[in-house]
């Protein structure tokens, strides 16, 4: 079965991603990893992550995907050996230095990062023959081009299906370096491609409209059946800095879609999946390059965005089946009388109305307003740990 690969910015998100249906997660260690602002894992965290994942027969990949400068090259071997001892299932690298060092000094499986912008079977086979088992393709390919490529290689092919899009070929952009002195290839990307610009010709403004390079996010729901049939090995969701609720929602949607396709060999309607995604998405989305060269319909002019249709208000920590009392950790404002939806890994959606909220001293709380406060509330439907509560606007 095709792998569903999800991002995880910390241990809690990692557990959520795996429980909600990801087959594997990718995480960033403290060194040699992009996404400097994502919460990065210590070697101890990574060990805990692999133990948790392996118990579920799932995998953990660690990104070591910077393009290093000379001063970044120290201590690589001990770090890679640390990852090997932590039993990570693979590293994701972009630098030949890191790739070759890992292959020479450890038994780690190596995946080639999309930072290398692998676009064709010749490039993929170059890396495969060098010992790289899996290649994360550039995002700039149509689904037909991906299929053709898969047919011409023995390497495992990983394809982005959901999340933010680099506007440049990944790894070949230094907008951030030039405009902010922050090195995009060493974890400092300032996302300068999402800023507002003015286009000028011979120094004269071409239009009063704002020029934007920014595009809608990637959302490949309708392309999943094709990618499965094409023989792609792994489908990747992007976004190590995204919220717990976003990770759970997106992972569950793609999990259900993949499972439904394997079961029925067709997807009757994508609407239910699309509606679910909207509960957590806050950016407009499209299918990127998967249906061919993106045109104007995929650009984000005037920085339009949408609010998620539903608000994540709490996560279930415990549930007593006899008393039907749930311990819920607050994540967003909600109050007595609100109608909430229960979103959980293995059950259909259910709704209930909040009748009473108690704090840990059993005092009545009319409004849950304190982040991460542990609250008690009665939920007649049995719920499980890690189930999420969403507020339904009526």
């Amino acid at each position: 079965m095709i792998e569903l690969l999800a991002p995880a910015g910390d241990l809690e998100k990692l557990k959520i991603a795996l429980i909600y249906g990801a087959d594997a997660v990718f995480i960033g260690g403290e060194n040699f990893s992009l996404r400097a602002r994502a919460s990065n894992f210590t070697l101890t965290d990574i060990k805990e992550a692999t133990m948790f994942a392996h118990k579920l027969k799932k995998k953990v990949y660690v990104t070591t995907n910077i393009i290093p400068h000379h001063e970044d090259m120290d201590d690589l071997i001990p770090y890679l050996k640390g990852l090997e001892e932590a039993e990570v299932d693979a590293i994701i690298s972009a630098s030949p230095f890191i790739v070759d060092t890992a292959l020479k000094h450890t038994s780690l499986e190596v995946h080639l990062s999309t930072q290398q912008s692998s676009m064709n079977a010749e490039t993929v086979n170059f890396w495969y023959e060098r010992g790289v088992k899996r290649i994360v393709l550039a995002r700039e390919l149509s689904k037909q081009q991906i299929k053709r490529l898969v047919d011409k290689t023995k390497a495992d092919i990983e394809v982005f299906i959901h999340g933010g899009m680099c506007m440049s070929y990944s790894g070949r952009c230094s907008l951030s370096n030039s405009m902010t002195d922050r090195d995009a290839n060493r974890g400092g990307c300032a996302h300068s491609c999402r800023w507002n610009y003015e286009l000028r010709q011979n120094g004269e403004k071409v239009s009063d409209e704002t020029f934007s390079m920014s595009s809608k996010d990637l959302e490949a729901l309708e392309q999943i059946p094709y990618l499965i049939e094409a023989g792609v090995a792994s489908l990747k969701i992007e976004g190590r800095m995204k919220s717990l609720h976003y990770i759970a929602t997106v992972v569950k949607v793609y999990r259900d879609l993949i499972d439904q396709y394997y079961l029925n060999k067709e997807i009757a309607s994508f609407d239910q999946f699309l509606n679910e995604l909207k509960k957590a998405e806050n950016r407009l989305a499209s299918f990127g390059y998967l249906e061919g060269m993106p045109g104007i319909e995929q650009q984000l002019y005037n920085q339009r965005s949408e609010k998620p249709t539903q608000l994540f208000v709490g996560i279930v920590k415990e549930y007593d089946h006899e008393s039907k009392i749930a311990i819920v950790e607050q994540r967003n404002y909600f109050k007595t009388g609100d109608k909430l939806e229960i979103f959980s890994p293995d059950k259909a959606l259910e709704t209930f109305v909040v009748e009473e909220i108690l704090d840990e001293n059993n005092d009545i709380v009319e409004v849950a307003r304190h982040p991460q406060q542990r609250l008690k509330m009665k939920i007649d439907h049995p719920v499980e740990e890690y189930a999420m509560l969403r507020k339904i606007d009526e």
Partner: protein
Amino acid sequence: MKIISTIFKLDNLMSILENADGIIVGNSNFSARLTSSFSIEEINDLISKLNQLDKSIFLNVNQMFSDDQLDAVRKQFKSLNLHGLTGIVVADLGVFRILKQQGLGHKVVYNPETLLTNYYDFNFLASEHVYGAYIAKEITLADIMQILNKKSYKTFMVGHGHLNMFYSKRKLIDNFSKFIGTDNTFKNQQNLTLTEEHRQNLNYPVFEDEAGTHVFRPAVFETLSVVDQLERQLDYLVVDTIFKDDDYAVKVLKMYHNRQLDLKEKEQLEKDYHETWDDGFLYKKTIYKTRGQND
């Protein structure tokens, strides 16, 4: 150290070659960010001419390619006198593989723009016996010198010109033209700039060609101040004149040929071409997150 230059018009070849050791050319079907696109016939003529003159000629095959595009490149290669070239500059390792299959791996100059930032990564194709590689543009002089000291093959760097900092496959200017409702596609026009809303004094040259959209640094990068240092180790210094013209190339090449900054000429060029020169990242270290910490 040899100096190679881009060129706009073939009529100006001899003027360019007065102070350059060779040229670098391309065709819009497989090259990106060209000063001018030359036909296959023109390129083959140039190869013959440069060989007769005992000068270097490099071909830019620096687009990124999907498999179907690579098929087209293979066909174009059949019409080109690749053996007569000094080197073939590639951005995509797939092109390297094709050339290797044709027994031309030794002509490859690998230029992935941003990726060769340390001596190990720079030399990673040593076992493939390529001709050379481009040093990344975004590193310091100290890092450049480390790479030069440990090179396994010929070293190339852009020594003068607007440095490219963004290469998208998307036709971003064409999309914008449609958005604002104009028939002007602005394709292949070298008079466009972008200005960011909080950096009103900086104009970033932007260019759309067959390969996609490219954005460049606003200042012209120059290395005349360090050319003596580079000369001891660097094999090829590239003068890229995109957004300028051949008169500009002739004047700039003379300074690099003489290994000397002509301050008066520089000031005149800055005035005539509405540009400023700077030293890019030579003394400016970009920021990496503090190791072992989150920011």
